[in-house]
């Protein structure tokens, strides 16, 4: 292993790595400074500094109701997906029943089926059920999309936990319910929280299903953005993009923090 050969290789690898990180992060981050522009059009480098586009986002009725709708749908989705997904993870990881792998496949399948197909399939039926264009319809749809993430996260926690702790609890006289609430749940809680966060993000960023299941009177933030992006784009869209990114990134950082706290 001659050093003369290794040294250039290292430099090459480092350069490749830096370039790839640049490709991964830079295109998205370009939006952030553009949202603070003083000009009436999107420009880079941005001219001056102003918060007017954020002000516009928060005062404009369409944008601001979009934010509120997205938050409502996201929180309800996170709640429903976390409950259903945690139960399902327990049932799949610890249950014993015929067709278990089929159930596992069903739970993961929303990740596989192209989202346009899911959107159109749900749209066709939800219209008949009269829940298209409502919070309920979108929450049900997003919950289906988010379930796999909750199940995978909680299952991972369940597989790594030491079940002897439950036996110990039983030996000390705890009934199954008590043992679950005081031993199992606290141990798998980081997985549950991670699942809830991923479920919220899934809903918060989702646009294709939402395009079909929302209406002019009820739109989420990404759908509002989709409508704008295809017409005249003013810098408000950059402010909206930055808002979407900041919420997601903050939640991911919370997640990293939660994982750090988790017992190894």
């Amino acid at each position, binding site marked *: 292993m001659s050093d003369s050969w290794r040294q250039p290789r290292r430099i090459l690898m480092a350069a490749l790595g830096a370039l790839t*990180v640049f490709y991964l992060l830079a295109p998205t981050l370009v939006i952030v400074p553009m949202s603070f522009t003083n000009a009436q059009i999107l420009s880079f480098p941005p001219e001056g500094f102003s918060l007017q586009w954020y002000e516009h986002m928060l005062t404009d009725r369409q944008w601001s109701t979009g934010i509120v709708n997205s938050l409502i749908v996201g929180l309800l989705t996170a709640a429903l997906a976390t409950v259903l997904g945690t139960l399902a993870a327990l*049932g799949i990881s610890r249950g014993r029943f015929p067709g278990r792998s089929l*159930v596992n496949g069903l739970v993961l399948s929303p990740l*596989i089926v192209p989202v346009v*197909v899911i959107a159109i399939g749900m749209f066709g039926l939800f219209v008949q059920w009269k829940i298209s264009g409502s919070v309920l319809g979108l929450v049900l*749809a997003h919950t289906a999309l988010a379930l796999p993430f909750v199940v995978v996260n909680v299952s991972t926690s369940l597989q790594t936990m030491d079940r002897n702790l439950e036996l110990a609890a039983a030996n000390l006289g705890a009934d199954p319910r008590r043992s679950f609430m005081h031993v199992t749940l606290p141990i798998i809680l980081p997985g549950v929280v991670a699942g809830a966060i991923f479920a919220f993000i899934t809903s918060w960023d989702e646009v294709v299903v939402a395009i079909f299941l929302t209406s002019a009177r009820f739109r989420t933030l990404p759908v509002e953005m989709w409508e704008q992006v295809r017409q005249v784009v003013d810098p408000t869209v950059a402010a909206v993009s930055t808002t979407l990114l900041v919420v997601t990134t903050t939640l991911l950082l919370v997640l990293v923090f939660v994982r750090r706290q988790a017992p190894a």
Partner: protein
Amino acid sequence: MATADEARSRTWPSLVSARPRVNRWSALALPAVVFLIAVFLVPLLAMALRSVTDPPGAGLSNYQQFFEQQAYVRVLTNTFWVALLATLTCLVVGYPFAYLMTIVPGRVAGLLLIAVLLPFWSSLLVRTFAWQVLLRDTGVINRFLLDSGFISEPLTLIRTTSGVILGMSHILLPFMVLPMYAVMRRIDPEYSRAAANLGASPLSAFLRIFIPLSLPGVLAGCLLVFVLALGFYITPALLGGLKDQMISQLIVQQITQRLDWGFGSAMSVLLVAITLTFLFVASRAVRLRDLFGSTTEE
């Protein structure tokens, strides 16, 4: 994918077995199963039904119509072509990066992983919009090239196939890197060291030991990216031109503009069938766990 439980259920119920066939935990999966059947599976099945009953007595005519029209078949071919190019781009960019993640110190690897996971979890629409801003005639790239005097006329970057590939690869890259990294991380460095001790050059050890051992990850990554790329809608719609239309766009167009539910449903069924076929073929070569197990790891 028969589990022991399934195998047991198919044999004669064993009376001597002390283990009951169904235990109490199983019931907990029930709400999610009922939910997914009602909200996810039934709509898909209703759509499949619609593809052969709309218009009444359609039979397979919707499918026939698709394959008889050259313009539709061209969209399907283009979908495969774009998905393939995006997959190759991700592989070329992603392989060295995943390899790099395995040889740098742990803390750097952690940072590189964050660089992969942040875009993985951020809005696809926002990232596509960013590419639109970069690639337009008056966009960031053209502005930079014009100002620095490299070009005198703006380059046509948006509404082109390369624009679509660039944007799609950017969005799909994490799906390539994560499964490859998951496999590469498990490769014992002792193998390469042993090869070196036996006189192999670092390059030949890499080519003959590391690359073959990393192939399951490569396969998993390529498969995942390809299958996801087949269903892309937002990115080709915003970055591509008319001739870059992909099957998802055609489906949406048929449903929302022509209100042709039968035909749109038939194309949807086709897209799902193609996706499942690729996954089925691949499931013989790749552990499907490698596809999704790694995305939430760490």
